[in-house]
């Protein structure tokens, strides 16, 4: 589904992205968020470490991080900490907010979740 993935062009200058994604069980919204973030991470290859946490299984983890809404992404590295709430249906915004490296001047069309326009 992401025909223009160009793995080699990710800026592999040793920066490691550590992301945590908090979701609620198997809900459609959570699964969309997982898929959306995975495909972004895949672009980064080795440089991205993504952990998916189901708050229904690990509520204490949600408590420790004071997670309110699901899905929530926390960018633990690089600092400063940043959060994104939502199913990440707009990959460009996600990339911009989390400051993820993208292939220069190349828009990365990613699967966009349908019918969930928000904000």
């Amino acid at each position: 589904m992401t025909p223009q993935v160009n793995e080699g062009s990710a800026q592999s200058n040793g920066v490691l992205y550590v992301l945590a994604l908090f979701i609620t069980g198997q809900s459609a919204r959570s699964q969309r968020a997982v898929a959306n973030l995975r495909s972004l991470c895949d672009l980064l290859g080795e440089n991205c470490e993504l952990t998916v946490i189901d708050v229904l299984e690990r509520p204490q983890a949600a408590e420790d991080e004071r997670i309110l809404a699901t899905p929530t992404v926390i960018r633990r590295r690089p600092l400063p900490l940043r959060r994104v709430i939502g199913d990440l249906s707009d990959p460009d915004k996600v990339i911009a907010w989390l400051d993820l490296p993208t292939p220069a001047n190349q828009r990365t069309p990613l699967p966009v979740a349908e019918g969930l326009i928000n904000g």
Partner: protein
Amino acid sequence: MSDLATVGLQKLATHIPGFDLIAMGGLTRGRTTLVTGAAGSGKTIFATQFLAEGIARGDSAVFVTFEESPRDIRQNVVSMGWDIEAWERQNRWIFVDASPEPSEETLVIGSFDLGALLARIEHGVRRVGATRVSIDSLNAVFTRFQDSGSIRHELLRLVSGVRELGVTAILTSERPTDTLDDHHSVEEFVTDNVIILRNTLEAEKRRRTIEILKFRGTGHQKGEFPFTVLPNAGIVVIPLSAIQLTQKSSSVRITSGNQDLDGLCGGGFFRDSVILVSGATGTGKTLMCTEFVGGGTGVTERCLLLGFEESREQLFRNADGWGRDFAGMERDGLLRVSCRYPESMQLEDHLLQIKRDIEEFKPARVAVDSLSALERVSTPRSFREFVIDLTSFIKEREIAGLFTATTPSLLGGESVTESHISTITDSIILLRYVELYGEMRRGITVLKMRGSPHDKQIREFLIDNAGMHIGNPFRNVTGILAGNPRQAPAAELDRVEHLFDVEP
């Protein structure tokens, strides 16, 4: 744990003082109740106290905060006597901290739900076995997330999620003004039960009230009830009309402290009656309080004298002047005199302070000198509520009460106090100046004595260093109560001069 017959809904006693009376048993068990009010109306205190009172009785609780940090809340309620930190250590109180974290920036991209919050609440409830949950306050959620349409939907889901946990919950929400309509009124559909707290300015006085707007499927008292917030106690609701007239009526007589007056009253006051003494300044009201107290301590009854006009020292000196030794009575533990400035607090707080005094000291008699001083610092409505509440409180405990009221004019007339509360009291005694042959004399009459025959005449009385002495009736004077005493014809003069010689 009072069962309620109506459609099988059970009530959970909150144990917030007075609230359960107007809620007819408490909040609906297992349901969520919305507590709404303007800023400063006491929502967070209500939410906290609901949990604190439960914990005091062995429950556990979860507090979900959207607005203030747990640290602030812990500090803010210390003055109420609630030690949240200790409860947290005992695993009986858990915070679910959903307060904003200014250090972290958050962006919303796409749709979301509050599943994580619900999971945290559920986790907290399971961890401590909570039966009570408070969520404070919804508005903060609205300001946090822009899309109020979807957040409203999410809150609905949150509320039904909380309901499935089987806990009894409080949800607070701020309304911009004290009017009924507001822009978040949709919230009220979120819950079946809505309580409104108000803090209004009425005749320059702050008045806090609580109203149960709806309790779906179960009964409650309607209308606004005053409440106050006290240190070391929190919210105390004054459930006026909810007070039931269950007082037994005693036929036991007690002495007024003055034999002559006992005679006028047909043998003394009733054990559980409330007597109002009305008169202009200097007619002898404080003296009647003093004698009433002296009569009680004389038969080793505990007496409580509440002074709102004179200082302790003045009251003690007055008593000395009439041959009553207050200091000695206090040493014997039979008397407690507490004097407070009426202006020092709100009437509701005075009431609760008086009740505390009564519960601590457990007197058989209470004298209040004077109600009029308290009336000065209140609105007519709160004053009436105050008197009703105080009266039923002391009657329930079979305490005799003597209240004084000051009339504004020297001659005749009735006091404002009197007209407000005369129907509430059992007996009314009037003290009046009587201008007679260029002399100011004093007259006394028992206007009303519920359930007993009594002397109907207006009698002259004298005050000396042994107290009050009641003499013969003013037979030759009319219009005393109207404040317009007129002497009888000259032929009567002779008789008047010998008024105190022998009973004609």
